């Protein structure tokens, strides 16, 4: 099956917007939880997902820009030399994505040391920025951070045995695979599409988990207590 270049770019845009919406949803809900509970971790987690949501919007913008180029020049996607505009957008995308992911890793460490976040982010920026192959080092660094987050979630599941935590752990595992597939796409280009599909499944799992949690919010603790008391009387 031959996939049209324009179709591929359209899919890239649609998927980037979908990823952005899911991560934005998690961010908003997390910040809502923070506004009620004043829990610091909820604030950091919300900011982390918000940064990733912004990164995906930039990714969609970049794809739209490349799409308009191909429509006029009918060029190949990967042979287009980066213009100054696209270079800025790519830099911003990498910046926001790394900052967001570093924030999630920092939240997973569960230590109240701001210097730890600065250290993770600085190391990530330096490793990507100083590399000759920025794309390769970006996917390599994000894969390492994602592996760390995935392990943290599986450890969390082993402690709380919560099914939603397991779903989220699997989602992060898939995101890691997706990233590794993007990393390997320079060797085998078909892995690029597989990477997107894996990412789509991962974000669908996160969306399902979030929807499940939001459904629970319809009953407050007092409604539950009243229900329990009623059952005891019976």
């Amino acid at each position, binding site marked *: 099956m031959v996939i049209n270049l324009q179709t591929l770019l359209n899919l890239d845009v649609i998927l980037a917007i979908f990823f952005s919406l899911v991560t934005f949803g998690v961010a908003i*809900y*997390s910040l809502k*939880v923070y506004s*009620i*509970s*004043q*829990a610091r*971790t*909820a604030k950091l*987690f919300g900011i982390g997902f918000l940064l990733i949501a912004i990164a995906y919007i930039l990714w969609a913008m970049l794809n739209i820009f490349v799409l308009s180029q191909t429509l006029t020049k009918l060029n190949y996607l990967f042979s287009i030399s980066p213009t100054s505009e696209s270079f800025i957008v790519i830099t911003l995308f990498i910046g926001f994505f790394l900052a967001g992911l570093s924030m999630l890793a920092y*939240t*997973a460490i569960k230590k109240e040391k701001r210097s730890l976040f600065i250290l993770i982010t600085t190391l990530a920026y330096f490793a990507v920025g100083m590399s000759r192959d920025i794309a390769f080092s970006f996917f390599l660094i994000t894969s390492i951070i994602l592996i760390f987050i995935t392990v*943290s*979630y599986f450890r*969390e599941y082993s402690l*709380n045995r*919560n099914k*939603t*935590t397991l779903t*989220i752990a699997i989602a992060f595992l898939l995101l890691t695979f997706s990233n590794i597939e993007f990393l390997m796409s320079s060797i085998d280009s078909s892995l690029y599409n597989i990477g997107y599909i894996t990412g789509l499944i991962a974000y669908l799992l996160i969306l399902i*988990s979030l929807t499940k*949690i*939001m459904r*629970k*919010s319809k*009953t*407050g*603790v*007092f409604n*539950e*207590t009243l229900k329990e008391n009623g059952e005891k009387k019976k």
Partner: protein
Amino acid sequence: MAKRRNKIEIMKDILIVIKDKNGKIKPTHILYKSNLSHQMMELYLNEMKSKRFIREEPLSDGKRTFFITDRGIMFLDQYRSINSFMESFGLD
């Protein structure tokens, strides 16, 4: 073995104890009902005061009394969703 309570659950338990006492309680009562050590209870009360879930007022006899605030009531009302989100995403 009973599951260890997380931070959010402990705060919820303290707020329920205050709410059950018509929104006003003495620390000794909290200590008795919340199943915490004195040191831990003080830590939680301070954190809950900083989050403005409760407020402290001295009585004429010099003893302390804690009151639940509107923010504390809102926390209790939204507790299930907060705890579910925090636990699921490993934020507690």
